[in-house]
């Protein structure tokens, strides 16, 4: 305990010596600090932007829903290069088969997606329409914040009803509630029965710019191009009870569909089954790579800052060789001299790091406001920044400090 206090006091002395030395060459200290400051600033900002991208992407993925498989009628490029003849098909009956035969499935939501033109007296909007069943609401967490969502009887009767997203509602009914109003979708009159709960926007993708109508209505009234069969769909969402069921279910769906389409052994699947887990993983990897690249680029400036520190510390040691000799004559051990210069470098770096961090926090908050892109700087990032700059100080100050400590007392004292 006493030893600890003494050694802390020893470091305190070194900090005092360092501050005096840095004040003596104030301009030079500021310029040196600037290098570390810019380095830490760019690294922290890179981390923040990378974090932001990860947050955005995972939010975007979360809006899809969870524990869900997505089946699309596109040849699975993952199982080989796609060939033109492999154009796949997917039908509502496939969906029913999946619900019936794959274990752990909680709901199946077949969908048809189509771009539509909506008109009201005096206004119009182009948006994406999803022809869906009530299960769509369950599987991908879509509910109505006003009015109601689709029901089985809407689908059964191919009712001309629509649940519209906030962006669409704002375009068409800027002043009033849209619920109960009549809109014309591709010239067909529909009644708005509900407003979709907002899912915000991520990475420039507006999740509220869409409408949902019964799948039957969309097929009968809104499709402009003919489909191959009477119950073809654009995609199917398959909801699972939990993640384990999802993992097993992906394989089961593939096997079932290969059977149904009589895909010969060795031929690639004319459809693709992706899970939300997979999507989250791949996009997570991509954003991590993105972040790593950003941080790597930013680190170069930190490296340059560190080299600046080393340069200045070498100059400082050379200039103060006589002082080093004197201190040795007065009883300084090699380790005392080494620590003095290490602390001096670390103090320079930590001051630079703290300023760089503050500027990065400021820049990130401006960025968040202007670009509406999250750039979170966590407490851990802040600690990391300061620790990192101290390490830079120790690493790049280390060589000059050790060089100083190895001087012979008399040679140092005689120098000038």
């Amino acid at each position, binding site marked *: 305990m006493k030893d600890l206090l003494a050694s802390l006091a020893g470091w305190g002395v070194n900090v005092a010596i360092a501050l005096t030395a840095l004040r003596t060459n104030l301009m030079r200290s500021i310029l040196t600090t600037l290098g570390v400051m810019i380095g830490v600033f760019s690294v922290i900002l890179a981390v923040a932007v990378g974090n932001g991208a990860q947050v955005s992407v995972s939010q975007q993925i979360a809006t899809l829903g969870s524990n869900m498989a997505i089946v699309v009628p596109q040849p699975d490029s993952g199982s080989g290069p796609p060939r033109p003849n492999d154009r796949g098909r997917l039908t509502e009956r496939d969906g029913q088969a999946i619900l019936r035969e794959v274990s752990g499935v909680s709901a199946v939501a077949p969908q048809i997606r189509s771009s539509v033109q909506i008109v009201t007296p005096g206004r119009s909007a182009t948006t994406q329409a999803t022809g869906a069943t009530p299960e769509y609401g369950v599987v991908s967490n879509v509910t109505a914040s006003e009015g109601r969502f689709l029901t089985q009887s809407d689908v059964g009767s191919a009712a001309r009803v629509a649940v519209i997203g906030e962006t669409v509602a704002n375009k068409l009914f800027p002043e009033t509630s849209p619920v109960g109003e009549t809109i014309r979708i591709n010239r067909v009159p529909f009644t708005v029965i509900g407003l979709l709960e907002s899912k915000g926007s991520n990475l420039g993708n507006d999740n509220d710019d869409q409408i949902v109508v019964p799948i039957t209505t969309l097929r009968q009234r809104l499709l402009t191009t003919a489909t191959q069969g009477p119950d073809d769909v654009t995609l199917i969402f398959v909801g699972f009870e939990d993640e384990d069921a999802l993992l097993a279910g992906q394989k089961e769906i593939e096997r079932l569909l290969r059977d149904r389409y009589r895909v010969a052994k060795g031929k690639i699947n004319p459809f693709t089954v992706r899970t939300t887990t997979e999507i989250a993983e791949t996009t997570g990897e991509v954003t991590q790579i993105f972040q790593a690249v950003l941080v790597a680029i930013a680190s170069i400036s930190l490296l340059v800052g560190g080299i600046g520190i080393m340069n200045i510390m070498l100059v400082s040691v050379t200039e103060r060789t006589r002082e080093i000799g004197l201190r*040795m004559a007065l009883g300084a051990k090699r380790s005392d001299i080494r620590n003095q210069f290490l602390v001096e470098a670390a103090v320079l770096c930590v001051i630079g790091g703290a300023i760089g961090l503050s500027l990065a926090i400021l820049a990130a908050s401006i960025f968040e406001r202007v670009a509406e892109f999250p750039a979170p700087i966590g407490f851990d990032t802040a600690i990391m920044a300061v620790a990192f700059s101290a390490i830079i100080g120790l690493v790049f100050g280390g060589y000059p400090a050790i060089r100083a400590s190895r001087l012979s007392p*008399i040679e140092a004292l005689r120098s000038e």
Partner: protein
Amino acid sequence: MATPLLETHDLVKDYAIGGEIVHAVNNVSLSISRGEFVAIMGASGSGKSTFMNMIGCLDVPTSGTLLLDGIDTKLLDSDALAEIRNRKIGFVFQQFNLLARTSALDNVAVPLIYAGIGYAERRQRAQHKLEAMGLANRLQNTPAKLSGGQQQRVAIARALVTDPLMLLADEPTGALDTQTSLDIMGIFQKLNDDGITVVLVTHEPDIAEFAARRIVFRDGQVIEDAAVKSRRKASAA
């Protein structure tokens, strides 16, 4: 008889200059006891400083033995030598060697930092030594605000602050005028009277007369080692 404070046996320091070897100190054997006041004299280049630096553990002999307080310095590592410089030896230099832009008090306290003494005690002990040097009202002055004589007194206070056994002073009056030189010699005499061993390098014969023993170097060797016959007393002067 008690062990001498300092003993050298065949002490040698060689320098290689341009392929030639210069024997800066050449086979010096002598001993200095506690409480002595020794003046080392000799022409410029005779090896006085080289000898002083070795007995002050600032420089390492090429060969020979140096015993300090009975300890063979060859057996000590750099940390132990630093500790000897810190605890047992006080240095006074011709050019004072004070830290610029640092107060007299902080200058005097430097050796105590390396002795591991805490802040409050450092200040108190440094202040005490400065007061003893008649600098009670100069504690916060930086060297630039002090006269040469005052700076040398700060340096002496610094040399004394760890209460060493021995003061080593290489030409301490070399940068001072006559009257100030006499003052400084008075201080050394008083310190010696109080029991501290003083070894002084000078090339001025009248400064050497303040010492009790005179050792004369020529070409790295001792050519004379005798008591000073008519010793000057600063208090009488």
